[in-house]
């Protein structure tokens, strides 16, 4: 059974059709990739999945429950969490605090606990801090928990985004260009991390990626968007050989690589 099922998702901005009846299914344990040229609608798809945009048509079902009309915070609480392409960390908070913010809905203390400083408050907060430290170690940011998030190096900021998203205990993790701006060895590390997460921290991953080495290296299924339409889907090898994909995407990507 699919963890996530999207059917006929359509999103328009005025006259522009950003997503045209897109279907997508993600199975348990799967790393799925969403690729496509710039402006193909990949991030719009993420925004619709996480409730930031309200789709005009279509149905999103997560664990067999419909997500239409559900607010973004509830969707996160239901088990879908994302990272952002243009990093959106809380710059004026420490690295550890950023991860703790991700745990907000999972800490489970009420105002009475907070104001009364109950035993439960300390227990839960300390648990959260320990989990945050463990998550930071997992993504390779150990020892940096006291730094300002904004002072981290670019690659570290991407890793912190992943740790922060993991903090919300998602079952489906959405990664928006997790290796953008990383050098090859950093990207290698991120690939290993994503593969390690499946089954241990999350059930499935959906990633948007431009780096073809990453996409072809780790994903089980690749879906290709072009002008808001899904033009191909299959294993990395199938997609690589698909004529429409080569025309719409890989040709462009090669030129972009030369530029």
């Amino acid at each position: 059974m699919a963890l996530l099922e999207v059917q006929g998702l359509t999103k328009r901005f005025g006259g522009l059709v950003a997503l045209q009846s897109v279907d997508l299914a993600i199975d348990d344990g799967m790393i799925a990739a969403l690729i496509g040229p710039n402006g193909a609608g990949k991030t719009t798809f993420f925004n619709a999945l996480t409730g930031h945009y309200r789709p005009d048509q279509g149905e999103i079902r997560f664990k067999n429950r419909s997500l239409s009309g559900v607010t973004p915070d509830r969707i996160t609480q239901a088990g879908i969490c994302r990272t952002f392409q243009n990093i959106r960390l809380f710059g004026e908070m420490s690295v550890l605090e950023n991860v703790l913010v991700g745990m907000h809905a999972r800490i489970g203390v009420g105002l009475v606990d907070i104001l009364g400083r109950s035993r439960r408050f300390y227990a839960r907060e300390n648990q959260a801090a320990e989990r945050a430290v463990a998550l930071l170690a997992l993504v390779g940011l150990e020892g940096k928990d006291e730094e300002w998030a904004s002072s981290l190096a670019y690659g570290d900021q991407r890793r912190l985004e992943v740790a922060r998203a993991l903090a919300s205990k998602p079952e489906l993790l959405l990664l928006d260009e997790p290796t953008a701006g990383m050098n090859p060895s950093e990207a290698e590390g991120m690939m290993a991390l994503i593969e390690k997460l499946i089954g241990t921290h999350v059930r499935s991953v959906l990633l948007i990626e431009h780096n073809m080495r990453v996409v072809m290296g780790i994903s089980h299924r690749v879906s290709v968007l072009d002008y808001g339409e899904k033009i191909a889907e299959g294993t990395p090898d199938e997609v690589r050989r698909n004529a429409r994909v080569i025309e719409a995407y890989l040709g462009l990507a090669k030129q972009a690589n030369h530029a």
Partner: protein
Amino acid sequence: MKNWCFTGGLVGYILLSSLLVYYFPRSVLAFLAFEASLLLIYYAPVSRAVKLSLATAALVVVLPLIGTINGYYLEIAIQVGIFVALALGLNIVVGFAGLLNLGYVAFYAIGAYLWAIFGSAQANEFIAGGYFPLSQAWFFVFLLLSIAAGALTGALLGLPVLRLRGDYLAIVTLGFAEVVRALVNNLDKPINLTNGPRGITPIERPPLFFRPLLEGLGVAVDPAALYPLYFYFIVLLLLLAIILVTRRLEDSPVGRAWKAIRGDEIAAVAMGIPVVRMKLLAFAVGASFASAVGVLFAAKQVFINPESFTFMESIGVLAMVILGGMGSIPGAILGATAVTILNLQLLKGLSLWLNALRQSGVVFTLPLLGSFDLTQIPAQFEPAKYERMIFGLILILMMIFRPRGILPPQKRGSTKLTTGGSTKLTLPRKIEEPANGAA
């Protein structure tokens, strides 16, 4: 060893400055020297226990004693306390949650009028039976009621405007405050609720419930002398409660959620933070503080009218928060204290001094420019008129040279979480500053 040296120094300084106030009861500088002792205590490299006990001694023992020498200083202390409480409340809304509120004074007015109407004969105008004014003991009930009333109005204002951001929210809150002011100004007809611009007086003060005790001890009770002290301690207790609540909220998932919303609302909501609920909470908590302080203000002043709740008051409190450092509790306290003392003492003192100089007929002689007779200065240049200008200049300079405020918020690594002294957090890493964490 070092600890003891500094402690001794601080005690010496407090005693010395108190003696100065004792021998020069009318000197602004002497009292300023005493006030500075609190700042020294805050900054001194001594343990937290020492800081707390010294600050307690200064605020609970020394300051009331000074107040018996010169009652005006107690009045200043009470006003400082009121503004510190207001600044702490606004700091939650603007500093923590990043919601620019330009109408904060409205909640202050709501609290003040709540007690003013029922704690005076005013309520007889629309409730028959002559039950009013309520007896003094009701003051404490209304203090609690005002917290609920403030929270409720704060949430009510918050509900429709939460989708607005930044400038738009600021304009709506500004409008709200003007609506509240216009209402209290005009609700003297058709039913006389607020007595309009004439204001309400006399308002009941809190009960002297300890009077029999004092008389039993053989102390002559003079309410006129006792009330300032009494109000001073009520303000102090209220402040203590407010600081405690604010600190606990700050060091909790709620405080982190507020800061996250301030930093990036889209990212905050994507992390599962119920943004609407958290913003409402910030509005409600901030408003409840202001409302409670309003009750106290009405009881202290005995007379209130709409003039006390103008837009300038909101701006004044906002300036305190920004000056001190948005999002920082020590910053809000210091900002409110500095601005209030600046307004009540320093600038007033300067005005008086310049006026005295002017009237004494001093003639300045400047080389090349000739001589100036200060008595000849036209009325437009009266020293009292410089007050706001100097205040404005200070604000401008602060924003240029220290835009994050005097005491900007500290970075939090959450390492200082301790369970109130019983069991300490054991994280698999170093815990910084054990000296400060020794609670």
